[in-house]
């Protein structure tokens, strides 16, 4: 086999693996679901056109040349999408380093490793770009339908963004490996991905609150101050915005830049990619973190279970990054609370749904980890405890964790508006309890490491959990503004949860 043939064979192999991983994630590993997954995805993509139309439909008529404010808004939106891609790319690269089980085979093959890993880097870039294209297509479609074929160049911008995001993600991850070693990189990369993914929006919101007392990030983007400090309209900083709107020259330059960036990363890092992957794999075998020496602690059997769950949650890198992200999202409303404290502004009402939704989502994740993600199910099942006492101990852990995180916010809210604090506190409890109950009804035995794929085990549970959080958040907001509508919203959400329970699998 010639070198070129070997590379194209390896590229096909990588793409096949990426496709199957994605398919397994969509179908929960059940082959029979493939058709349903494809149909569901098409429906989802079609449905996405509706919010896309609502969000950016009015911008379809925009034409070049644009004023600075418009360029700033479009560029910021593109940059936001790029940060999300970068966040996704960092997670993908880390996963490839730690999870792929074919390193021994690749390393022992007679092929040139640098070439093979270049292909692997390209495959990551392709996977990231495809995913971004999938999600951006409805938005670009809306612009093309409303504003004409010139918007088609936006697809090219997405490709350029995918290439550059992958290149930077690989460089950042490998540098992290070299700087802090494989033991910490996985954890730090997850935190970094969370911060990058949420950071830009939050930074804009924080700036808007500090300057104008509003949560709207557009307020800061369209302000005169930002326009005054922005570069001239013909600056290269506006290339992405201009390329999106049909400037083919800017698009070609962007694509070239993306390709050069990825090519440079391949040339510089493909050799180190191999070393890094080996280090990561070796870390799995030999890297060991030590715990402090301490005496055994007493207590009831349920206490032992709760202690174990707390310890595992505390040591879970996903949970730390997820909680950090939840807390990051709570920074703007907390800031708003602080600024509006004196005048009891109506903007305060916005805080409640954010807190309630965050509590529901966090509780859902925690409940999956404690209830379904039990790594030693046989041990717990053969312990002298009734199944109900095991479930009770695990549910208590979820609710205690949620209470610890959200109580300070509700307490702060109580100082500004006791009534709102009561509504928010009750809604937080109901939202967390609902998400936990859904996870309990739809529990399936899984390993904690499968957390990323938890949504695939039951679509119904996934949607029910999301609707429950949104429903209780809406109920809290409406109770504060239109109490009757709040009651109706609460009844609808409770009915949805009851229907979910009705459809949950029967157990002995």
């Amino acid at each position, binding site marked *: 086999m010639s070198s070129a043939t070997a590379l194209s064979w390896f590229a096909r192999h990588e793409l096949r693996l990426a496709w199957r991983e994605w398919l397994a994630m969509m179908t929960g590993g059940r082959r029979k679901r493939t058709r349903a997954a494809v149909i569901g995805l098409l429906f989802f993509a079609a449905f996405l056109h509706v919010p896309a139309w609502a969000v950016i439909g009015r911008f379809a008529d925009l034409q070049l040349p644009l004023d600075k404010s418009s360029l700033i808004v479009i560029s910021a939106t593109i940059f936001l999408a790029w940060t999300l891609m970068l966040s996704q790319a960092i997670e993908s690269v880390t996963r490839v380093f730690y999870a792929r089980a074919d390193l021994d085979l690749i390393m022992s093959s007679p092929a040139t490793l640098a070439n093979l890993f270049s292909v692997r880097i390209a495959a990551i870039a392709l996977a990231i770009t495809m995913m971004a294209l999938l999600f951006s297509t409805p938005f670009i479609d809306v612009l093309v339908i409303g504003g004409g074929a010139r918007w088609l160049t936006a697809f090219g911008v997405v490709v350029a963004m995918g290439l550059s995001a992958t290149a930077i993600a690989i460089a950042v991850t490998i540098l992290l490996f070299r700087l802090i070693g494989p033991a910490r990189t996985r954890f730090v990369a997850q935190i970094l991905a969370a911060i990058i993914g949420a950071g830009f929006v939050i930074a804009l919101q924080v700036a808007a609150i500090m300057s104008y007392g509003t949560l709207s990030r557009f307020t800061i983007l369209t302000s005169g101050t930002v326009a005054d400090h922005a570069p001239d309209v013909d600056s290269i900083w506006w290339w992405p915005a201009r390329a999106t709107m049909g400037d083919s020259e800017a698009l070609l330059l962007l694509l070239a830049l993306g390709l050069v960036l990825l090519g440079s990363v391949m040339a510089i890092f493909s050799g180190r990619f191999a070393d890094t992957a080996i280090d990561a794999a070796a870390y799995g*075998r030999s890297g*060991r973190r*030590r715990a402090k020496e301490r005496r*055994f602690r007493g207590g009831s*059997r349920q206490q032992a279970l709760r202690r174990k769950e707390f310890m595992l949650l505390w040591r879970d890198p996903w949970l730390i990054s997820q909680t950090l992200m939840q807390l990051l999202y709570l920074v703007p409303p907390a800031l708003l609370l602080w600024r509006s404290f004196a005048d009891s502004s109506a903007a305060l009402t916005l805080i409640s749904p954010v807190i309630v939704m965050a509590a529901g989502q966090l509780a859902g994740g925690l409940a999956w980890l404690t209830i379904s993600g039990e790594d030693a199910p046989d041990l717990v099942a053969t312990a002298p*405890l009734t199944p109900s006492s095991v479930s009770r101990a695990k549910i208590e852990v979820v609710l205690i964790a949620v209470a610890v995180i959200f109580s300070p916010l509700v307490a702060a809210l109580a100082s500004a508006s006791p009534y709102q604090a009561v509504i928010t506190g009750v809604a937080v409890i109901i939202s967390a309890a609902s998400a936990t109950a859904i996870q309990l009804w739809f529990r399936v035995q899984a390993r904690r490491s499968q957390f990323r794929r938890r949504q695939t085990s039951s679509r119904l549970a996934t949607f029910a959990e999301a609707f429950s959080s949104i429903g209780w958040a809406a109920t809290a907001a409406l109770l504060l503004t239109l109490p009757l509508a709040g009651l109706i919203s609460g009844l609808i959400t409770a009915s949805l949860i009851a229907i979910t329970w009705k459809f949950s699998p029967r157990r002995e």
Partner: protein
Amino acid sequence: MVAGDAKPDGVAVMKPDNSALEVRGLTKRFDRLAVDGLDLTIHAGEFYALVGPNGAGKTTTLRMVAGLLRPDAGAVSIFGIDALDDPVAAKQVMAWVSDEPMIYDKLTPLEYLEFVAGLWGIAPTVSEPVAQELLSSLGLEAHRHERCEGFSKGMRQKVALAGALVHDPRLIILDEPLTGLDAVSARHVKGLLSERVRAGCTVIMTTHILEVAERMADRIGVIASGRLVAEGTLTELRQQNGHADTSLEDLFIALVTLQAAA
């Protein structure tokens, strides 16, 4: 420290004799009959090896005994406790070790043992020295404060075994405990099990390594197609099969072939 020495309140007593485990008419069907009306009696203080070909029903039988699987029919009694009627009391006196060590990657061996002892309600003053001693005798002393995430399969299996022993069970059920262990680790485990049997503990173990069954077990049960096709000491099995000097491997093949033909 024996957690199960005092019989828990409200225990449903089936038969007050010296049997550690009594199984009667145990039946389980999945898409086919996995266990077919199995009867089994294991005496207290006995080392019993259950051998059989793949898919014979060994693991299914033991999972039903351990309370991990509900039988379709039959009765299971552990030291006179009806395990189906009062599973919590039955579980208090037994331990289960599966072939795939299930431990927590983010806990250290010592933390894992603390958790297991807590689940069985053993006082920390009792369980801590036992845990230290177990880790030491299994060659894990140097790793007792390291998280298990980087452990080899053999090390994980030893941690799981230590977990099964830390609450001093009266009946230990092991499903292929030596799979994946190196020679030194296997010797550690065998030594520890023999020691427990000498101390009066009952051990029931499935294994594919017939040499282990031949050397360690007081009695051997051969299971095929969900039924016990032969049982006894090695000498008794030889006599039943009419070959005085044959190995367990030959006996096993002869019995299984006979069952398959039937």
